[in-house]
Structures are given as structure tokens and as C-alpha cells.
């Protein structure tokens, strides 16, 4: 019973850290606690999801980091089911980030002056909203491998009844 309470306390801490991070980011970007974040990018302002959704995403990230550090410190000896759930949620979040990145990236890239009709060999520069999608796929693959490793270790350290 004591062990479950300990895990719940850590989950609550990660949620609080998520809320605190949101407040800090909101102050940094908008100078106030706004229900939606307004992220200025050059001459465009991106308005994010409602705050509860953003807080959830940040909490997943902080929870994942906290439970990963705990698992590494404990050498995966304890049951890591909470970490596995956080890892699952983080993989889903990565899929969403991947989708957003693809959605707002311009596939053809920006055409640098002079225009295509002006020169024979026009220089076309690729543009990504967050980063190149390859990096996101690699990061997601690393997360999945970490998930397999954590689950494998959990199974290996499981007490046989």
C-alpha cells in the first residue's frame, strides 16, 4: 500500500511541475497567464490548444523524465508500470508532434530570390515547422526501444509467485 502511495505522490509532483512549467512558459511568451499560448514566429502568431491540453502534454513530459530518472537510479529493480504508461503516452504525443510538423511544413520548400523563372538553377531551401521529420522518427524509435527495454527489465525483475 505504501508503495502505491509513493507512486501517486510522484505522479502528483509531475502534474504540479507541468502546471508550473506552463505558467513559466506563459509568462515568458505572453507576459501573463493566458488560457492559450501565443507563440510568435517571425511575422506569424501561433495560438496553441486550450491550456488544459498543453498542461497535460507538459505533465506527460515531466512525468516521463521523473520516472525515467527514478528507474535508472533504481536500476529497473522496482516495477516500472507507471513509467511504461508515461512512455506510451509520450509515444502518442510524439505522433501528434510529428503530425503537426508535417502539417505546417511546406513540402516544396521556400523559393529563394530570384524566382524560378529568373534563373535556370533555382535554389530551393527546405522548411520544417519544428524540425526535420527524420529526427522525430528517430526519437520515436528510441522511445519505443526504451519502452521494450523497460518492459523486458520489469518482466525479468518480476517476482514469480
Amino acid at each position: 500500500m505504501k508503495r502505491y502511495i509513493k507512486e501517486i505522490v510522484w505522479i502528483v509532483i509531475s502534474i504540479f511541475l507541468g502546471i508550473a512549467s506552463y505558467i513559466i512558459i506563459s509568462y515568458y511568451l505572453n507576459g501573463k497567464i493566458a488560457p492559450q499560448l501565443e507563440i510568435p514566429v517571425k511575422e506569424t502568431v501561433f495560438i496553441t490548444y486550450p491550456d488544459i491540453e498543453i498542461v497535460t502534454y507538459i505533465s506527460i513530459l515531466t512525468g516521463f523524465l521523473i520516472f525515467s530518472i527514478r528507474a535508472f537510479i533504481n536500476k529497473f529493480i522496482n516495477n516500472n508500470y507507471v513509467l511504461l504508461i508515461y512512455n506510451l503516452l509520450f509515444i502518442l504525443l510524439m505522433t501528434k508532434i510529428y503530425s503537426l510538423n508535417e502539417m505546417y511544413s511546406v513540402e516544396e520548400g521556400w523559393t529563394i530570390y530570384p524566382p524560378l523563372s529568373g534563373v535556370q538553377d533555382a535554389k530551393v531551401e527546405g522548411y520544417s515547422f519544428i524540425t526535420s521529420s527524420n529526427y522525430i522518427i528517430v526519437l520515436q524509435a528510441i522511445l519505443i526501444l526504451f519502452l521494450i527495454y523497460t518492459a523486458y527489465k520489469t518482466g525479468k525483475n518480476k517476482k514469480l509467485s
Partner: protein
Amino acid sequence: MAPFFIYCSTVNNHTMLRHIKKIVRFCFIILLALRFSNYLFDQQSLSTKTIVIDIHDTNYSYTPLHCTFTIIIVVLFLSYYSKITNQLYRNNKAVNYTFLILLAFIVVGYSQLMMLNYATYSIFPTTCVIPGPDDYRESYLITNPVYMAMVQVFLISFLIYNAIKVGVKFKKGA
């Protein structure tokens, strides 16, 4: 070919036959995948650079290699799944680990499919506007993103379940 013959001389006939059978089976899967992707996308030749799929007046291009790779992964996954349910392979580490890696490949591939569905979803509500106040039709490339996310949760849960099972199986002293 030389390393192959050196290898053949070092193993007994039974092992060699077993390995040749495996290689032939793998080649057969690749050929089958190539033919299947060729048939699926109605292409005359696999030497074409891209496979174009026409959906809602929009062309989506994929390389034949990409499609073939996907089919190979799925076929191999099914083959390994039937293996791990078999008693003979239950204690084989290599088979169990390969199965987990294949499942991981499928999860990553499925994420790409989700991205494709989601990215298209964002475009269609604005382009499929039907005249009238607040009246627009939502269209998805495959299906509702929520359903797709549910399938991904199932896939990852299946991966976790299998990884734990493999961990328990190869537990020291078990």
C-alpha cells in the same frame, strides 16, 4: 559466393539445409511483397520512381521500395508471431527478440500512417466547405484520428505485454 561455400563446408547437412530453407523462404517473401505492391498499385514496372495513389483529386507519392519494405515487415511479423505461439520456438531468444523488434517497426510505421491521416484531416475541412453558415464536412484520408490512436495504444500495449513476457521467460534461474 566463396564465404557461402566455406560456411557450407563447416556445418553439417542438416543445419545447412535448414539455413538454405530459411534463405529461400525469405527470398520468396521479398518476391511476393514486390509482386503484391506491384499489383496493388497497378504499376507496369517496378523501375518507376514513385507509386502515385490518387485520393480525393490529390496525388500521394510513395517509392516502391517503401511499400515493399512495409509489406516485408508485416509478412515477417505474422510469420514470427506464429513462431512465438509455437512451443518449439518459445525458448528461443533470437526469435523472441526479433519479434519485439518487428513489432517496434510496426509501431513506428503506424505512426507515419497516423501522421498522414492527421495532416490530411487538417486540410480537408477548409477545402470541403459546403455553402451555408457553419456547415462544413470533415473528411479523413483513412478514418477518424481517435480510432487510429486507439489502435496505436493497442499495438504499444501488445508490445509491452510481449516484452514483459519475454523478460519473465528469460529470467535468471527461472
